[in-house]
C-alpha cells in the first residue's frame, strides 16, 4: 500500500508539475500570476473534445488542433487583454487575468453547456501494469511521467541554449535592459503566453481524462499547481517539479491517514512556505541594487 501511495502521489504530482510549469513560464517573463491559466487549458481541452465529438476526427488531430488553438489563445490574451493596459502594475495585470478567467469560463458554459463530459486519452487508466509487491501503474500515469520528463529536458535546453530562451530570462531579470540590448520584449511576452498556454493545455487534457470535462474542472488543479509552484519557487522550473512531487505525496499520505485534512494540505503548504521562505524552496533569490 505504501508503494502504491507513492506511485499515485508522484503521478498526480507530475500532472501538477506540468501545469505548474505553465504558470511559472509566464511568471518568469512578466512576474504575473496568470489566474486564467486553468480556464485557458479548459477551453483548449474543449476544442479537442469538439474536434473529436462534433467533427469525428481521430484523437491525434484533436490533440494537435487543441495545442495550436492553445498557442493562439495565449498570444491573443496577451495582445488583446494585457498589452493594451497603460502603465500596468503587476497587480493590475493579475486583475486582468482574473477577468479573462471569468470570461473564458462563461464562454465555455455558453458554447458547451455546464453538464460534465467524458474526455478520454489513448493512455487509458484502465490499462494497468504490475510492478513488484502488488504495486500497479497505469498507462495514464506512465504518459504523465514521460510528458513531465520530456518537458523538463526540453525546457532545460530551451532556456539554456536557445536565443529565445535567453531572451525570456533576460526580459524577466530586467525588461528595460533587455529592450536596450535589442530584445523585442513584446514578442517575448506573446511567445511566453502562447508557450505557457500550450503546456497548460497538455496538462488540462490529462486532468480531464482523470475526472470529467466541464467549464469549472480546472479551478482545483490550478490551485494545486499554484501551491506546487509556490512550494518549489515560482522562478524555478525544477523547483516546481520537485514541489509538485512533494505536494502529490503529501496529499496522498494525508488522504490515506487523515482524509479530512487532505484538502487543506496544499494551502497550509502555501502559507508555511510564504512565511518561512517566500521565494520557495528551490528558487534563487535575486536582489536588486539601488
Amino acid at each position, binding site marked *: 500500500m505504501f508503494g*502504491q*501511495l507513492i506511485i*499515485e502521489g508522484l503521478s498526480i504530482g507530475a500532472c501538477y508539475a506540468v501545469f505548474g510549469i505553465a504558470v511559472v513560464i509566464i511568471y518568469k517573463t512578466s512576474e504575473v500570476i496568470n489566474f486564467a491559466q486553468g480556464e485557458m487549458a479548459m477551453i483548449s481541452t474543449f476544442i479537442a473534445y469538439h474536434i473529436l465529438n462534433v467533427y469525428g476526427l481521430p484523437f491525434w488531430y484533436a490533440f494537435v488542433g487543441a495545442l495550436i488553438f492553445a498557442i493562439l489563445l495565449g498570444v491573443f490574451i496577451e495582445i488583446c487583454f494585457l498589452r493594451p493596459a497603460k502603465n500596468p502594475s503587476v497587480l493590475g495585470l493579475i486583475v486582468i487575468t482574473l477577468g479573462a478567467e471569468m470570461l473564458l469560463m462563461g464562454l465555455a458554459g455558453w458554447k458547451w453547456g455546464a453538464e*460534465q463530459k*467524458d474526455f478520454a486519452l489513448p493512455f487509458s487508466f484502465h490499462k494497468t501494469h504490475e510492478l513488484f509487491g502488488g504495486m500497479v501503474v497505469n498507462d495514464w500515469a506512465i504518459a504523465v511521467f514521460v510528458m513531465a520528463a520530456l518537458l523538463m529536458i526540453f525546457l532545460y535546453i530551451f532556456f539554456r541554449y536557445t536565443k529565445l530562451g535567453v531572451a525570456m530570462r533576460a526580459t524577466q531579470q530586467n525588461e528595460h535592459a533587455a529592450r536596450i540590448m535589442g530584445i523585442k520584449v513584446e514578442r517575448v511576452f506573446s511567445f511566453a503566453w502562447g508557450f505557457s498556454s500550450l503546456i497548460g493545455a497538455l496538462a488540462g487534457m490529462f486532468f480531464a481524462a482523470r*475526472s*470529467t470535462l466541464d467549464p469549472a474542472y480546472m479551478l482545483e488543479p490550478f490551485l494545486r499547481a499554484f501551491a506546487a509552484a509556490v512550494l518549489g519557487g515560482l522562478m524555478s522550473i525544477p523547483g516546481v517539479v520537485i514541489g509538485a512531487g512533494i505536494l502529490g505525496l503529501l496529499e496522498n499520505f494525508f488522504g490515506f491517514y487523515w482524509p479530512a485534512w487532505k484538502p487543506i494540505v496544499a494551502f497550509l503548504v502555501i502559507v508555511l512556505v510564504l512565511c518561512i521562505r517566500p521565494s520557495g524552496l528551490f528558487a534563487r533569490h535575486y536582489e536588486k541594487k539601488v
Partner: protein
Amino acid sequence: MKGKWFVISAIVFLWVLTFSAVPGLCNPPGFDDKEIRIASWGPLTGPAAPWGAVSRGPAVLAAMVNEQGGIHGRKIKHIVRDDMYNPAQTKVVVKELVEKIGVFSFVSGPSSAGGLAVKDYLAQNKIIWVGPATSVKEYVFPPQPYLFSVYPLYEDEGSVLAKYVVEKLGIKEIGVVYQNDTYGRNGLDGVRQRLSHLNMKAVAEIPVEATEKDLSSHVLKLKNAGAKAVLMWVNPTTGVVLLKTAATIGYKPQWVSSNTLSDFALMNKISGGLWEGVITGAFMLPPDSDDPRVVKYREAAKKYAPEERFGVFFMAGMMFAEPLIEALKRVGKNLSTGAVLKALNSMKGYQGVGPKLTWSPDQHQGSDSVQIWKCGPGGKTILIQDWTVNELAHWKKK
C-alpha cells in the same frame, strides 16, 4: 430647531420604511381570474447548471395542465429564474418574483444553501413552497407551515441502501465515501443507523470535499480496509473520479450511490461506461420507464421542451410540481393560500411519478421511501427494488 425637525423627519422616514417593509403587505397577488403564477429558481448557468433542469421541468407540467384548459378556468404560468447556485442570488431572484411579479407558490428549487437562504423570507410572506429539489432536514423539522417536502431524506435512503447491500447482496464489508457537508453526513447517518441496527460497523468512512479531483488515497484506503461495497453521497464529478481511480488500481467493489447520481444516461456517458452496474437510490419512476404516466410526461416534454434531455433532473422538476397541481385542483374555484395549505395538509398517500406523499399540519416531510435502481448496459435503468420504507426512521416515531 433644525436638529429637532431633522430627528422628527428621520423617525417618520424610518417608520414609513419599516411599515412598507412588512412582509406580504404590498406584494402583488400570485393569481387572478385568468392565471396562477408559480415559480422556480435554479442554476441555469454556472458550474451547477446540470441541476437547472429540475427548475425547468415544472413548465412542462404547467403546459400539460393548460392544454386541458387549466385548473378551474385559470391557466398556470410557470416562471423560472437563474440563481447561478449562489444563495445571495437566490435571495435576489426570489425577492423579485415575490415583490415585483407576484407568485402564488414556488416549486422545486435545488441547492440546500439557496433554499435555506430564502426559507424564512417565503414563510414571512406566506408563500407556499412545494417540493424543494433537495433533502434538508431543516426545511421540515420542525414543520414550516408553508413548506412541503417531497424529497426522501438522505438518512432514510442511506438506511434502505445499506439494508439492501447487507441483506440482499450479502456484503458485510461496507465502506462509505461522503461529501463533507449536510448532504453527505445525512447519508452517512442513515448507513450508520442501519449498520448499528444490524450490529455492524462500516470498515471505512471517508469524507471528501466537493471540489477534490485526486481521490487516489481515498480509494486506496477503501481497498486497504477491505470494503467490498462502497456507498457514496457525493457529486457527479466526485463519483466519476472515484470509479476511474478505482479502475487504475484494479479495485472493483460494488458501487452504491445516493439518488443524486441516478441520472444513468449522464453518469454512464461521463464515466466512459464505468457506471454500468452501479446501484443507486431513486425518488421517482425511471425516466425511460414504460409506465403510462412517465410515457405521457416524456411525450409532453418532447412537445413543449424539445431542446431538453428527458433525464432524471428534468422529470424530477415535473414530479416536484405534481402535488401542488393536485392541491390546486382539489381546492376548486375559490382559490386562496389558506385553501391550498388545507389541501396540502390533508394529502394522504398521494402518488404521482414519485413516492407516496402524506402531509399533515404536524408533518411536512411527505415521503419516507425510495426505490433502488441499477445502471444497465448503455446507461439503461433497471429497477431492482420497488418503493421501500425505512422502518428505522426516527422522524416518523416522533
